[in-house]
């Protein structure tokens, strides 16, 4: 069902946790739907210096969270904004069809965290553009 990469990220998820003094926090999903992801970012020089996630959800939700955080760690915010859910799935060697839409929300959560950061730090954000 799941690829080896998915199972690897699921069983050894990278970047699990919270950042108490995060610069941005994003949430995607809904526990009623069975998937909820929360992303914490630390931003320095317009780059994602640190990133952590918390996820309530199925194997795909956890694996995409892990993979997505890995993919954007150290990237600029603009680069991170370009990451799509599809790209995350691809990096994981694909996801089962029914998981593509439901549990593959990590990129969206990262975007939400970046937007949260930008909303809270209008100057820093403007400087970057």
């Amino acid at each position, binding site marked *: 069902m*799941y690829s080896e990469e998915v*199972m690897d990220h*699921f*069983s050894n*998820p990278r970047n*699990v946790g919270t950042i108490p003094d995060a610069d941005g*926090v*994003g*949430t*995607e*999903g*809904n*526990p*009623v*739907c*069975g*998937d*909820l*992801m*929360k992303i914490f970012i630390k931003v320095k020089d317009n780059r994602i210096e640190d990133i952590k996630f*918390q*996820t*309530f*959800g*199925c*194997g*795909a*939700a*956890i694996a995409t969270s892990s993979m997505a955080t890995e993919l954007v760690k150290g990237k600029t915010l603009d680069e991170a904004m370009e990451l799509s859910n599809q790209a995350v799935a691809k990096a994981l060697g694909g996801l089962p069809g*029914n*998981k593509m*839409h*439901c*549990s593959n*929300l990590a990129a*969206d959560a990262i975007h*939400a*965290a970046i*937007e*949260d950061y930008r*909303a809270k730090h209008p100057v820093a954000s403007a400087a970057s553009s």
Partner: protein
Amino acid sequence: MTDRSVYLDHAATTAVDPRVVDAMLPYFTEKYGNPSSIYSLGREAHRALEQSREQVAAILGADKREIIFTSGGTESDNTAIKGVAWWNRLKSKGNHIITTPIEHHAVLHSVEYLQRFGFEVTYVPVDRDGVVDPGDVEKAIRPDTCLISIMYANNEVGTIEPIAEIGEVAIRRHVPFHTDAVQAAGYLPLDVNKLNVDMMSLSAHKFYGPKGVGILYVRRGTPILYQQSGGAQEGKRRAGTENVAAAVGLATALTISHDNLEAEVQHASRLRDRLIAGIEERIEHAHLNGPRTNRLPNNVNFCFEFVEGESMLLNLDMAGIAASSGSACTSASLEPSHVLKAMQVPIEIAHGSLRMSVGRENTEEDIDYVLNTLPGIVLRLREMSPLRAGQESWGSGDSHTEHTHQE
């Protein structure tokens, strides 16, 4: 990964008992005749089929002519429900069916199929333990009610329904009554007269028989239009070359299980109770779904708050433990369990349900292994989860968009 493997999903399917395989084997390569054939090879197959039918009939307290072999529980449910409905349509009679919201999809989707053709359905509610009130069934009966279909025992939460009482209502009100006894077989008495049922479905692979074979009991005189048309097999009620090996397998498995019913019930109950007690002792925010008594001896079902079912299952699988969940992610519908929903379990909690169904080969060591493994898994997933005890409004407040489900 581990060397230990503990199968706790007997409600999904069971391994075929080796004695059952032995009983089936000759019918593949030696006694392969078509039971409709006149020559000795055919007569031999015919005899085996009829002997199997008699064995089943005896256990159900039925006449052998009331026993139909089908391809499984799903076909049995479909035939019972659609068969009675279409018979009524042909006679321009009843158009209304009574069932419950906690039935198996084989029942629910059969009535939905009929709704597309204009049949009307009333779903009698269940209480928080999943129990149907016979009084509610009686209240739901209309002059045009042509069928009541209510399961004997629920496959997810193990609730045992008051079938004999509902059957009394059905008899008094002259409404044919079908029960899906797929999960009951092997643990509960199956006497159709004590149960007051007109039709009953069984599926062999739930009681250590093969997949792809079931029983539909139909009481003589039940108004039904049989659904599989063709040859004259099964008394013209279910066409198709008879699956002799499977029928022999079903009868053998049912007989073994009937002969050992008490011991099986005791064995399963002991493991079930040990598992329930152990979980409640070791894991916080764990809610038992379904009743404490009046519950299938082999069923354990918990909701663990703040974690999602599939991720529990995957972790359990890595530890060699096979279980199931009513989580949306493990269903094709992307909705969490309709059973838990009908029992008014909050939907976000329903995603964290875990069913463990014990069976013949499980041991106390198996249970202890699970009790040593599961708490760690739940703990780890909870640490990973953004949800926490005492948090009122989950996930709100932050930048957050809804996503929609697509199938």
